């Protein structure tokens, strides 16, 4: 039950994008088309899941036993950076069109704060391995949900008469604001 609660809460209630404001750059940058939003979301989910496992392992087997928790930031970022680079190379080799679509945003997963935040928060809340994984997958799916919804809305807004200065990031942020409002309805569902 605890695991389900962590999972659902990460998707709907404490959504990384709409509640914690994490991963805003890719959220705005890669949400112009549903297809690329979906791949971005899945890429993030994938990296998040691996990060949850690896950072848990580092934290529990290396840092905590040796009281090196002040090295969290440096070691986590190192793990994430390498992981992302691996994923990037992998996608580039396997699916060049996907690589073209994600463009410069793949390296930005490195600087996607949501992944770092995930590792830190899992460490802070002292999650067990299973909890960390549930949290990682949930957060990733929450990000995917938010970015796909956003992409759908933006594709429809491409056919709308949005005022010139608001086109692009402006209207996207306003939509995100209203989405955050709508997601607030789930508050209190899981304590």
């Amino acid at each position, binding site marked *: 039950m605890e695991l389900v609660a962590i999972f659902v809460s990460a998707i709907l209630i404490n959504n990384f994008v709409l509640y914690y404001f994490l991963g805003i750059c890719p959220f705005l940058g890669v949400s112009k088309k549903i297809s690329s939003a979906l791949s971005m979301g899945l890429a993030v989910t994938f990296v998040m899941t691996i990060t949850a496992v690896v950072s848990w392992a580092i934290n529990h087997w*290396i*840092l905590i036993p040796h009281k090196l928790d002040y090295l969290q930031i440096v070691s986590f970022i*190192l*793990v994430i950076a390498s992981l992302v680079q*691996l994923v990037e190379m992998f996608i*580039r*080799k396997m699916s060049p069109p996907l690589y073209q679509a994600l463009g410069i945003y793949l390296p930005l997963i490195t600087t996607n704060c949501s992944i770092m935040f995930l590792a830190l928060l899992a460490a802070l809340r002292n999650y067990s391995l299973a909890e960390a994984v549930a949290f990682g997958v949930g957060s990733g799916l929450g990000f995917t949900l938010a970015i796909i919804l956003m992409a759908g809305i933006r594709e429809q807004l491409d056919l709308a008469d949005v005022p010139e200065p608001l086109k692009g990031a402006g209207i996207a942020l306003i939509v995100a604001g209203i989405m955050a409002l709508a997601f607030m309805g789930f508050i209190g569902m899981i304590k």
Partner: protein
Amino acid sequence: MDILWPVFTMGALSLLFSLGLVFAYKKLKVYEDPKIEQISEFLPQANCGACGYAGCRAFAEAVVKGEAATSGCPVGGEEVTQYIADALGVTAEKVIKKIAWLHCRGTHEAAKNRGSYLGISTCHASHLIGGNKQCSFGCLHFGDCVRACPFDALYMGEEGLPVVKEDKCTACGKCVDACPRNLFELHPASQEIIVFCQSQDRGASSRKMCKNACIACGICSRACPEAIVIENNLAKILDYKKIEPDKIPEIEKCPTNSIGRIHKDKNEG
């Protein structure tokens, strides 16, 4: 001892991941000719597609592969051609500076309307249902070409016809494609005389529809028979180079002003 642990930990971690990366780099490398990047950066990045490729990068790839000519970018002009040629180590082909001109003088005043047009305000849409002007060949005045121009080289003049700003025109050909009636044509910048009409209607009927239509009277072709002919009720310049400068005043006697010097208007006012 305290200091050793962190150093060791971080060192070990770094080593592990760098090894992984090195391995991946070797295994998953994708080769790309660095020239593509180099050329692509020098291109105008207008992504106008005038070269026939999907954007500047695609053109760069094609040039490197040898599929496109070094002078394939009409927008960049000689500078870009030279650069590409240098980058690829071949000699540059010669580009002639061209400018797009409108072949119609059916102004608001001259060309009559068919009726009140209720529809989408673009030339193409109007053309689909026959056009809002009586003349089936002339300009429709909705400015599809102006919207298509990526270089701000066109604007709608007060008389209802699009006007080309010569200094800004790069001969990318966007307006040629945009005009549903093919009224634009690219001419070498040196060409001074063009025919300002494309109406193939008989003189009598085209005259009724538009005051400035070519009525195929033949004055121009009599002045320069080897350069200008009348074909399909329309004057046609076969070879501009054969027009002798001293014959120009005679050509300009055209009763409907449908052939003449491009810059006449400009010089007058």
